[in-house]
């Protein structure tokens, strides 16, 4: 792993104007890097800003400040042409396989669109490339002539993945790719993603609220809370020795599909609700729900620092 990382996000912030009062700080100064061939999980609860980060990285979201470098190209503030060129190297898989496909376009036209509009293939060559992509994603070449509504949710997600792979991107951003799918189908798509990454070796940012899924596919995991990164650590470190109290609470809250283990787990439910990003708590954003909060947590925002193999933003991390 030499050279520049596949993705480097520096001090990224996305603020929305509020109807009144200060702007909503949906994403508020986060930094991380993603090496080539690596999978980074980005987890958090709804409204934490993880999907906004994903959209900002591929240039679908206006950014307030900060930098997103993909393969040496700055995405923030890039012009139309530069962005279009950069997107040849990064693609996205969305959460809802129903609305990710144009219902009035055949599967073949959808999967072939990136190649066609960039002038990379047409006619018989395009059809051949599409057939290959479909086969690779577990569909049949004949499926190219059909329309999305003729497919199940899992199959549609395969089509979406085939389309994302058409340009052989170096970076794949997956925004909750299996959340809308039933368990048995979810396993199929996870297996496919794992296989494809092995075969093509792209870097992958995997956004999800499901910790079990993230543990299954990711090398490193970043935990977000209210627009900030709470913790970023290698997978095993994060799951076996979480350092941020929020990470610990999150891990404790996920019910294990194993009654013995689940009922033996210590119960430390978080009290209270997630505050609204429009009314951000002072100091550490987690202090309103943190079981270990001290006066300093209310006043001073914790620094983003290294503890062992992990990066963590907490005054009192588990060491």
């Amino acid at each position, binding site marked *: 792993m030499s050279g520049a990382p596949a993705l480097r996000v520096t001090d990224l912030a996305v603020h929305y104007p509020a109807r009144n009062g200060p702007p909503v700080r949906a994403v508020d100064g986060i930094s991380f890097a993603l090496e080539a061939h690596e999978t980074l999980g980005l987890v958090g609860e709804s409204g934490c800003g993880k999907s906004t980060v994903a959209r900002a990285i591929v240039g679908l979201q206006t950014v307030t400040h900060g930098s997103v470098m993909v393969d040496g190209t700055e995405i923030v503030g890039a012009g139309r042409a530069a962005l279009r060129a950069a997107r040849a190297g990064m693609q996205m898989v969305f959460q809802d396989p129903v609305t990710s496909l144009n219902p009035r376009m055949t599967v073949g036209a959808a999967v072939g669109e990136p190649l066609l509009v960039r002038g990379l293939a047409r006619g018989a060559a395009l059809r051949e490339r599409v057939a290959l992509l479909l086969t690779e994603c577990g569909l049949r070449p004949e499926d190219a002539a059909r329309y999305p509504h003729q497919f199940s949710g899992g199959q549609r997600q395969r089509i979406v993945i085939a389309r994302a792979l058409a340009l052989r991107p170096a970076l794949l951003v997956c925004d909750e790719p299996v959340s809308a799918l039933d368990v*048995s189908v979810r*396993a199929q798509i996870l297996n496919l993603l794992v296989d494809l990454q092995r075969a093509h070796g792209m870097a992958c940012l995997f956004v999800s609220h499901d910790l*079990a899924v993230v543990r299954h596919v990711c090398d490193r995991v970043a935990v977000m809370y209210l627009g900030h990164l709470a913790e970023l650590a290698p997978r095993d470190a994060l799951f076996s020795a979480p350092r941020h109290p929020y990470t610990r609470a999150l891990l404790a809250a996920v019910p294990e599909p194993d009654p013995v283990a689940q009922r033996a787990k210590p119960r430390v439910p978080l009290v209270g609700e997630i505050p609204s990003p429009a009314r951000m708590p002072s100091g550490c954003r987690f202090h309103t729900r943190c079981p270990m909060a001290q006066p300093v947590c209310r006043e001073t925002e914790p620094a983003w620092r290294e503890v062992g193999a992990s990066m963590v933003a907490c005054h009192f991390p588990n060491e």
Partner: protein
Amino acid sequence: MTPALAVHDLRLLIGGAAVVDGVGFAVAPGEVMALVGESGCGKSLTAHAIMRLLPDAVRQDRGYVALDGDNLSVLSERQMRLVRGRRMSMIFQEPQAALDPLSTVGAQVAEGTGSPLRQARAAVLAMLDEVGIADPARRIDQYPFELSGGMCQRVMIASALIARPAVLIADEPTTALDVTIQAQILDLLRRLAIERGTAIVLITHDMGVVADIADRVAVMYAGRIAETGDTAAIFARPRHPYTALLLAALPRRTDVPRSRLAVIEGRVPAPSEFPTGCRFAGRCPLADARCRAETPLLREVARGHLSACWHAEAVR
């Protein structure tokens, strides 16, 4: 002992297709019974059928529901109204959608008592407090949009339980909530089941939720119960290939990362295309000619553990 709720041989039709077929189970007071399955397996329709709140397009042509031994199918709609809310209640997947946006929290919780909020105010306040709503005196006059999803679900639970019904039907009560909030709501439901002796039928698709809270579980597939028994027994040794595969398809904390997950090939057949014989046969690794020809009935394979599979003993 009479079960708090018993469902017998329920069959529901949409058009000509039996979307729920031969579903039966019983729940004891204070017990949590989970109905688990993937989307379209009929679990939510079963819940609505128990409450007799089925959509117009669905027809029940067989089976009945007994509440504390009373057969509900003989009741008129007027009599059934006296059952709903008082002896048996229901909560829903989208708590914010299940509350009228133009009525206050208090007015809606009071509806469960049958008297207006003015008279029921003290009871409503006590109930809001019991379901863990902080500052109930302020919340009682607020509107649903002023509350978070988790708080709305607490309000729903309050409105469902204020008249002390013996049975609560919870239709995916935590699916729309974040995990930390889900944990709170599951703790609340468990506490209420124990403290009030409420029998809970929990509809869910999440095996983790089942493992956490259910005493017993019925796994549904394509409108039928595949297997049912104690939660611990079913997780320890599933006796239906569908359950076994479903559990193996879940990534777990003990797995090797990126190891292959078990998959169930193909897809759930549409109700109009349900096969004769076992409905899982088309996707089952154990299926043989008999499975495709004859419908396997639920049979006891271990004490209290029933499976609807010809090859239950061969499931690993």
